[in-house]
């Protein structure tokens, strides 16, 4: 409201960085290796600089965010396609703000960690870092959009840079993984497109919009839809988000994609892109279709619990570190969805905090695993052993981030997982009980992986493994620090999240109040809608 387009500028900084990176002239093929190295170094430094500028800018923006102010702040609104009532409308509530914060924190970390990922002579280093920065722009856009059309545009468009990052720069069956990733997401996105259009058409018939179709979120929340319509539209949005999140049984693209992507790209995918799914569940599924949200709650809780247990059990059996981490994410996204659909303020706050913490924890462990894989040239757990003795820093940090993955008290993930489970238990005891088993399974997959890879006798192939270098430490240590800091003192982040959660809750309550003492919870599909 203060007139300065904070969010547009925040999104424009990485885009400008991408352009700057692309404009660095290429050297002719037969240049001296030294020149080429200097040139690629320039590209990387530029990319890192722009991501750091974006980080600083967002931090400054966040300090101006008022936790007692209006729901949506830093709003901007311009008419974009008047024929369809489309606006270029941006604004953030607490939930979106912390997710944007997580995005800009992870970006420089990932760039630093991916320093040599594209150095293979056949690949264009410029393109890789430009794609990353374009992706950052789109991810900021998708969290900041307050127009459903604009959200959809970013939601779909951000697939393309990630598709190229996996397909061009990935490892293993990267083509297969990239196509699978894109097609799964596109299918979900296209179903959502039907729902988006239908929402627009229904909005045009509603008195709340003055019979003018619109995509503005602020107007759409006042459009009352019949329960049947709500259910169909909810499904259209939800399937897209469930594929993105990913929720069992829509998760099958994720292990392939996280295996084939470079560690940096995988962190952006698991850490940020997939959060759009859970973010969308809160922002769109819940706020736009509250009745359908309640109707489908038993089904979704079931899927969430299955995801938690299935992801964790399958993770235990993985032989590849990257796939293992991919499956743990399936489990963790189950927790996030559980917290969202429990529809208690504890659960919602916990789920939002979980999104941020999961981004940092998974980011840290994936990057560390990536460093390890880059040294040994294999992602199979069996190829390691005794790393702790040759690379104590690597192993130590790996342990800390692994403990964060299993939600050890004192680390940030514990707070969010506790909130989610507590929030769920107050209403859905059975679901919460089953979900708690996920914590035990998490301990198994993390500790067993650590034991096999890091402890025991030093495997021959890792005996000469160097420990972490300064650049790698610089990338990971901030994440570890954040994990510990937010575990000890999560209040600043919760203070930003809670007002947004409260306002979401009150908005949904106002249309359909939830009983103070809910009937004993059930996760069975046939339980039907809450009254």
């Amino acid at each position, binding site marked *: 409201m203060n007139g300065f387009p904070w969010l547009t500028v925040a999104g424009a900084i990485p885009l400008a960085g991408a352009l700057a990176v692309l404009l660095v002239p290429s050297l002719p093929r037969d240049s001296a290796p030294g020149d080429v190295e200097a040139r690629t170094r320039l590209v990387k430094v530029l990319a890192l600089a722009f991501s750091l500028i974006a980080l600083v800018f967002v931090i400054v923006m966040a300090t101006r965010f008022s936790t007692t102010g209006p729901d949506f702040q830093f709003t901007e609104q311009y008419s*974009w*396609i*008047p*024929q*369809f009532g489309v606006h270029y409308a941006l604004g953030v509530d607490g939930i979106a703000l912390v997710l944007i914060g997580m995005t800009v924190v992870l970006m420089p970390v990932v760039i630093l960690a991916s320093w040599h990922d594209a150095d293979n002579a*056949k690949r*264009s280093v410029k393109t890789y870092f430009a794609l990353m920065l374009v992706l950052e722009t789109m991810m900021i856009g998708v969290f900041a959009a307050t127009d459903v059309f604009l959200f*959809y*545009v*970013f939601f*779909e*468009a951000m*697939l*393309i840079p990630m*598709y*190229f990052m996996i*397909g*061009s720069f990935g490892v293993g069956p*990267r*083509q297969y993984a*990239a*196509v699978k990733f*894109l*097609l799964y997401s*596109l*299918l979900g996105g*296209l*179903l959502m*497109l*039907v729902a988006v*259009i*239908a929402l*627009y*058409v229904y909005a*045009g018939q509603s008195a709340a919009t003055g019979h003018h179709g619109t995509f503005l979120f602020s107007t759409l929340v006042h459009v009352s839809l019949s329960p049947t319509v709500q259910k169909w539209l909810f499904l259209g949005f939800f399937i897209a988000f469930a594929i993105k999140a990913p929720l069992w049984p829509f998760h099958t693209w994720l292990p392939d994609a996280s295996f084939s992507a470079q560690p940096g790209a995988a962190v952006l995918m698991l850490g940020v892109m997939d959060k759009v799914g859970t973010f969308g569940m809160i922002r769109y599924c819940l706020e736009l279709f509250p009745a359908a949200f309640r109707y489908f709650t038993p089904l979704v809780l079931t899927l969430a619990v299955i995801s938690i247990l299935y992801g964790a059990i399958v993770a235990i059996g993985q032989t590849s570190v990257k796939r293992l981490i991919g499956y743990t994410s399936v489990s963790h996204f189950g927790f996030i969805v559980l917290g969202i659909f429990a529809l208690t303020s504890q659960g919602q706050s916990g789920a939002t905090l979980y999104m941020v913490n999961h981004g940092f924890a998974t980011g840290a462990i994936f990057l560390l695993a990536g460093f390890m894989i880059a040294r040994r040239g294999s992602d199979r757990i069996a190829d390691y052993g005794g790393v702790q003795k040759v690379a104590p820093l690597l192993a130590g940090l790996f342990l800390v981030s692994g403990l964060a993955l299993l939600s050890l008290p004192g680390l940030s993930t514990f707070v969010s997982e506790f909130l989610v489970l507590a929030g769920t238990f107050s209403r859905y005891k059975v679901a919460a009980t089953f979900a708690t088993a996920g914590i035990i399974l998490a301990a198994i997959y993390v500790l067993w992986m650590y034991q096999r890879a890091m402890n025991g006798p030093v495997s021959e192939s890792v005996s000469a493994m160097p420990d972490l270098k300064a650049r790698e430490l610089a990338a990971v240590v901030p994440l570890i620090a954040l994990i510990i800091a937010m575990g000890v003192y999560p209040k600043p982040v919760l203070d930003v999240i809670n007002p947004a959660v409260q306002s979401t809750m009150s908005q949904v309550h106002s249309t359909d109040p939830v009983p103070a003492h809910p009937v004993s919870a059930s996760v069975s599909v046939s339980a039907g809608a809450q009254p």
Partner: protein
Amino acid sequence: MTSLLAAAAPATIPAPSIEYSQLAPMLVVFGAAVAGVLVEAFVPRDLRRSVHLLITFGSLAAAFVWTCVIAASPSIFANGSPGHVAAMGAVAVDRPTLFIQGTILVLAFVSVLLIADSSHDVSEFAGQAAAPPGSPEERAVLLAGLVHTEIYPLTLFAVGGMLLFPASNDLLTMFVALEVLSLPLYLLCGLARRRRLLSHEAAMKYFLLGAFSSTFFLFGIAMLYGFSGSVSLAAIASAASANTGSDTLLFAGIALTGLGLLFKIGAVPFQNWKPDVYQGAPTPVTALMASCTVVSAFGALLRVFYVAFGNLTWDWRPALWVVTVLTMVAGAVIAITQTDVKRLLAYSSIAHAGFILTAVISASVAGLSSSLFYLAVYGLTTVGAFAVITLVRDPGGEADHLSRWAGLGKRSPLVAGIFALFLLAFAGIPLTSGFTGKFAVFQAAIAGGATPLVIIGVLASAIAAFFYVRVIVLMFFSDPVEDGPEVVVPSVFTGTAVAVGAAATIILGIVPEPVLSLANHAATQLFVR
């Protein structure tokens, strides 16, 4: 020709009033075509190409400017009139038609840029199409350096027919326009220099199937004449709403005229010619057909179904639903197995015809405006895509087989990148014009109550996305083939075509507002009756 004079004709036949200024765009193009024929006869061979280029580009540009002038002229649209029926009720001059004609002229201009490009070491067109491949005659023609400069007047005739086709206000004029646009295209299809037999086969197939469909169309006209006693679209509409004639004749007439029109847009089950013809024809001609002919045929389809059968939506809608579903699904599914890039785009064009049909079915203002918009953006992307295909060449000519495109992204990132942009636009990815178009037609369809069609449409889009993405995988993620095709540096002509296509694809994806408002404005009053 429409006012079939009654038996008791007066002794003196009044001279028909012809609104020359309103018909000028078509007259200019036809006049230029006739002049082109004279050029063939009288101008020395070495000058012909230059003169043809001058005439062709000049007439297309002049026709476009004149179309804009008519669209802006207050007299035709005074007092909220939807338009004017010129030439004794034969030709409608209304806003949708002018939009379509403007689109056709722009697309034709860009396509002619490709046709006129003579910079390749091997021309797209045969020196003498009648000389059998590999024969001494052919060698003699090659040595003499002969080229078919007739392609320019033929193209102009085809474009003239395309301009008249959607503007025809009675079915006989429409039939004449159909023939005028089709016959030159049959010839142009057979002129490919490379893979001559394939080209001849394509021309023959196109001609035979086209002749069949024309016959059906004509038969349908006869039925409708039997039903209403008139070939004028408005008279058929009023006879249908008065419900005076025989229903059998009416429905048979709708089915047969509809068949003729659906054949031209390549809707399933009348799509069989499309892949063969698109593959066999010289690529610049394919570009012309894939853009201009489709636009023109959709224009005619829209006019016939909105004006003549506008009150019968309940009767034709179920049949068109079936056709639309088949078109979207079959186009997308069969495309998956294609290995030739031109055939791939042919099937993709079939699927896209299905997407537009979802909006046509709604029979509403939104349906019309979104179809118009889709046609414009799709045409521009298509011309650009075919322009890129002319650039990727093996020693003998274009490298159409997809396997040859492997690793193109590493050899020439710019060309591959632009082609990827076009493919993403076809797939309907946001921030490209394809998304805006798709959004527009699906929005009209849902507002028109065709939500199931849209759901099938998005599923078909997802299937279609698979093969677009496959080409991108091939270009960017695969390693280059040994002695792969060379990407020639585009001449000014082809370069302009590619640039126009790419610019339109991006700009209309980000700021579609001007063209959308033009299309909306064109559609608000539907067609003149």
